[in-house]
């Protein structure tokens, strides 16, 4: 049953991914991309990574694509629909995709943990808890979930982000802040408003 769903959602993801570049209407392309994201989110969920899957939907399908759609809707899409196919670009794109697939295949064939079947590696919360305690890691909420035999994926991601990758996270945060400030500075209007006439 799960493998059927895997192929279904992979097909959704890849099919709509192809439609993104194949369709001439930008709105259709944007929606195909959103569908592709949903397929990807479903794949994450099937791997037990609920948090990543939901964030995929929340951030990409729910916010980023809506903004894309918002911008596209303001364009004149008729001009885009009339444009002819650029043959060298299409061929170049296909060649790039083939090279990338080849590269991915060679890299993945050397990736040993990928050869294990996921259903042969069951979740072992009790063992994980013991290992964590041995390493001196104690977070009450994570311990509670592990003791109850659940996978606290959200909390583990949070822990990793804020301990192991804390510095990187801060850097990314500053980068985003700089970008936000930059956008505001660029898009700020020149202050030419006229002072209102005071009442006589």
């Amino acid at each position, binding site marked *: 049953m799960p493998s059927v769903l895997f192929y279904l959602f992979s097909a959704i993801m890849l099919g709509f991914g192809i439609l993104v570049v194949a369709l001439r209407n930008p709105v259709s392309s944007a929606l195909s991309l959103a569908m592709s994201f949903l397929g990807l989110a479903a794949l994450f969920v099937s791997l037990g990574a609920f948090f990543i899957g939901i964030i995929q939907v929340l951030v990409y399908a729910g916010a980023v694509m809506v903004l894309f759609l918002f911008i596209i809707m303001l364009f004149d899409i008729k001009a885009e629909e009339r444009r002819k196919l650029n043959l060298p670009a299409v061929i170049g794109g296909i060649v790039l995709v083939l090279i990338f697939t080849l590269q991915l295949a060679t890299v993945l064939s050397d990736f040993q943990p990928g050869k294990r079947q996921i259903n042969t590696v069951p979740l072992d919360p009790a063992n994980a808890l013991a290992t964590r305690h041995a390493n001196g890691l104690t977070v009450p909420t994570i311990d509670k979930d592990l003791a109850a035999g659940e996978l606290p994926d959200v909390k583990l991601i949070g822990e990793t982000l804020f301990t192991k990758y804390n510095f990187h996270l801060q850097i990314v945060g500053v980068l985003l802040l700089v970008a936000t400030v930059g956008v505001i500075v660029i898009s700020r209007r020149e202050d030419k408003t006229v002072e209102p*006439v*005071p*009442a006589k």
Partner: protein
Amino acid sequence: MAYTVPRPKLSLLERTYFPTLIGGLKITLGHFIRFVQGKGKVTMSYPEEKWDASLPEHYRGAPTLVTDEHERERCVACQLCEFICPPRAITIVPEQIPAADKFAKVEKRPKAFEIDMIRCIYCGMCEEVCPEQAIFLRKDYAITGTTRAEMVHDKTRLYELGGIREGLVNKWNPLK
């Protein structure tokens, strides 16, 4: 000249929008509770409840024709109402009363008298102009029909609605 109305200075609390919001919610909840308690009812459930009993004296409803106590048509087909009618709702075809008739000395009566109730605006001018006090505005207001023809009141219908009006024919008869 442009005139700038100064905006009122709001205090910090007022600027949070909450005091006015809560005030508004209080007012609407008050109306809601009063209504649920059965105190705030202002709408009339029309077909069950009607204004009929408490219609004012001067209410102008459907124009009708009346007969006198001897069952004589009061209308003498002078056509004044037809001329005065602002929306031209009234159509009168006069005829001479045959000599054999009991009321032959009145000389004229309407052969056909039609009021198109789709056009009528209930202004009461016909009543006011009538020298014979033959046309009166009654208190009927629910004039309905499913066809246009049904909405044209002919002579029989008008007399049916108007009935008999007794008493003297004098212009400002207080009787209605």
